């Protein structure tokens, strides 16, 4: 990708016209994002049908290298972007979460196709995870079954736009610019059915009720659960779930010591997102007023 200095220039100080193609005054965030968005290396990681169209997108006719997605790397350590290209099954989500944890930050997830976005045609299947976002934070969803290569390209360009809006100046914009290292996503466990460690408490409560021959809690009686499901309302108002005493054996499956409870982390993420949106709006209005002048 050519370096377009005019595009990169973001300053109130005027650059003389004759120097516009030689000098740019810009923010560090913008320069950094510009470099990052144009060298996103996807992981060579195919799940199902969508993987074939992903390969087609990488090949000569569509060629996503043109947009800076240079080359696919087979190892997560060298990849910036995980394209979840196909149906995520319960058996496969365990390695997928591990792979995600192995990717260095900053990292992004693109859910390609109906299955990765929400389960797709196989949603009701007993071994199917109804959407990658049940386990990992997804940045871009691309609809289609499978999406055409054009659709995938569009989704990848949308991801680049998303990166443009992120800021290193504000440490809380995206988790990896914050202070300290981010926590790994808890790896699901294959028990009688798949178990998300973040839901251990709820599973335990349901099991206790079942053991005492009580009807399973409905959605209304489980405010925290409802919050998790809806995932839209802020969790701060939710009644805290009382942590049940934990046996030694089960310790491996609760969150690592010192880790934030899931709801809290989610809350922080939500706040970050809102703040990022607000900043974005300010930037946009500034840009608009600058253009008017």
């Amino acid at each position, binding site marked *: 990708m050519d370096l377009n200095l005019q595009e990169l220039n973001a300053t109130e100080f005027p650059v003389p016209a004759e120097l516009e193609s030689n000098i740019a005054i810009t923010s560090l965030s913008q320069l950094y994002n510009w470099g990052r968005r144009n060298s996103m290396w996807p992981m*060579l990681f*195919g*799940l*199902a*049908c969508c993987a*074939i*169209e992903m*390969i087609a997108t990488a*090949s*000569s*006719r569509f060629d996503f290298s043109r947009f800076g997605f240079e080359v696919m790397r*087979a190892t997560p350590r060298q990849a910036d972007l995980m394209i979840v290209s*196909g*149906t995520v*099954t*319960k*058996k*496969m989500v365990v*390695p997928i979460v591990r792979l995600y944890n192995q990717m260095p930050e900053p990292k992004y997830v693109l859910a390609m196709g109906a*299955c990765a976005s929400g389960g797709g*045609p*196989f*949603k*009701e*299947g*007993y*071994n*199917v*995870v*109804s959407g990658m976002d*049940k386990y990992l934070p997804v940045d871009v969803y691309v609809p289609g*079954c*499978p999406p*055409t*290569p*054009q659709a995938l*390209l569009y989704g990848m360009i949308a991801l680049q736009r998303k990166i443009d809006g992120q800021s290193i100046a504000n440490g809380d914009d995206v988790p990896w610019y914050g202070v300290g290292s981010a926590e790994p996503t808890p790896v699901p466990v*294959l*028990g*009688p*059915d*798949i*178990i*998300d460690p973040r*839901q251990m408490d*709820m*599973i*335990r409560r349901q*099991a206790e009720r*079942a*053991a005492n021959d009580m009807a399973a809690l*409905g*959605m209304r009686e*489980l405010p925290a*659960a409802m919050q998790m*499901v809806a995932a839209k309302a802020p969790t701060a108002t939710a009644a805290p779930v009382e942590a049940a005493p934990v*046996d030694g*054996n*089960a310790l491996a*499956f609760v969150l690592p010591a010192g880790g934030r409870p899931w709801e809290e982390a989610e809350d922080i993420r939500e706040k970050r997102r809102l703040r990022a949106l607000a900043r974005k709006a300010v930037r946009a209005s500034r840009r608009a007023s600058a253009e008017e002048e």
Partner: protein
Amino acid sequence: MPTAAPDAPLTSTTIEGAIDHLRATYPEAVRADDREGYGGIIVDSAQLLDIARFIRDDLGFDYLSSATAVDYLGAGDHMEMVYHAYRSRGGGALVFKAQAEREQPEIPSLVSVWRGADFQEREAWDLYGIHFPGHPNLTRILMWEGFHGHPMRKDWREAYYEEEQKPFDSRWPGGHVHRAEEKNVFGKNVSYPREIDLSRLMDTSESAVYQSLGLGVDVERVMDKDGFETNELVVNMGPHHPSTHGVFRMVLTVDGETVTSLEPVMGYLHRNHEKIGERNTYLHNIPFTDRLDYISSMGNNHGYVLAVEHLLSLGRRYNEPTYRCETLRVMMVELSRIVNHLWAIGFWLNDIGAFFTPVLYFIQERERIMDFFEAVAGSRMMCNYMRFGGLFADLPERIKSVSNLVNDRARDYNTMQFLTEMVSERIPRTIDELEQLLTQNEILIERSVGVGVLSAADAINYSAAGPLLRGSGVPYDIRRADPYSIYDELDFDVAVEDAGDMYARYLVRVKELRESVRILRQILPRLEATQGESIWADGKPGAYAPRVPLGEAYGRVENGKGELGYYIVSAGGKSGTANPWRYHVRAPSFINLTPMGIMSQGHKVADIVGILGSIDIVLGETDR
């Protein structure tokens, strides 16, 4: 009494003759399956092993194509294993069944007779809970060890269960649409058994895999031939590995670089095709078949509509598909086969070191065929093109490729001109180019000759199919052995090679590419001749929501990867039913992996990926 001529050998009797012979030999244990719409025989499971040996050795049905289970809950309340055996010289199936009661079902394992039954019996154990005494490694194959229940049993319900059969009442119009997550407390596609005890929870899925292979955690110390002390190591390849063609996994033990044993581990893309298929209506299943072998969706459609059409023909009102319809079907399937083999060869070359360059060349033709599919069926990959008794649409007059709008110009061709150019120039040119660069290529020959050898006897015994079978010197191609559609009037040869190694499979694929072009050359004049003829059996799109009469059917086609079969049981009333009772896919990619272990023994780790590539699997079909 046997109806075969007294001096004719038993191995060449008709199916009826063979059945009569069986009944004469085992009068107590064999009875005809006289349920309405059914065929074949029911065998007493106490004598199943003896009878299976008799069927293989004396009657000559040496190829076990499919072995699958059916749960007759509420219709006799028994479990049933259904076996389809064929002769490797060609001809129809001998269908035999064994029954067991539903609680604690037990049926003797046939692995000692046909090794090809291995994975299929494991699947029946995994999904139906049928126990097979005598099976060497009866462990779960698609789900993980520790999963609660056997999900394909009719009384097992998934977490997002709504109703037994579609269309669900909640669906629009008339219903209240909801998201399944909203009804589940966990907000996820999970349900836990009542007795779940989290304090004792152990993830045994991994250790079970190693235990079933007889592998401990400790590495064993072995002495190599020169007296050096070496360690035998366990190496995992997959499920995330660039050369496993998806999410397939192999567990190998290696002594140095040499593979001493290999076991495929699968199920990472098990998306419950069959369970969903039994909730669906017959018509719903057509787009689902696209997603089995997603590289050749047209071929998948074809096998499925053949099976359902066979069932429909048992009913009163049924018309054969028109000639134009059959012609179009064959054309689409052959184009799919070309795409399939180009991918297969390309990916295989990836595996043995020619990373992606050949694929980039092959994709050019693939893209043009995709343009054609998109213009005809509306979608590039998932064509959803065939219907019972007809097709989705006839050929359009012009092909306008939307895909190329990426380059800011749309392609626009006359359809017949486009096809003629493809068939007479472009595809043959690609094959010539491919052969010129590869067939005599020294590196390719060095890497592939003598590697991954499968003998003809093993190929038959392990139920190998497709290029894997023909590359081992068995000239078995369903288009010739058991012809369907209009293949019996088309002129083509069965590609076969004797060596049984990776190179032989490559040669078979190249030959089949040429034979496909040869078939397409004969198809084009037939298309011209039938211009204007209806693609629907009775002139109007009639069979959109068929009610399928009682009975069973097995429809099989020669797909790019091998024999693709659909076993369908319809358990409707007098007026038929819109939902299948049993919907099983005999997937070539799945069964072709059975001999993977014996093919890899003694080879280097670097050859394993090549051997897997030469089998040519697609995970959508392997795991279903």
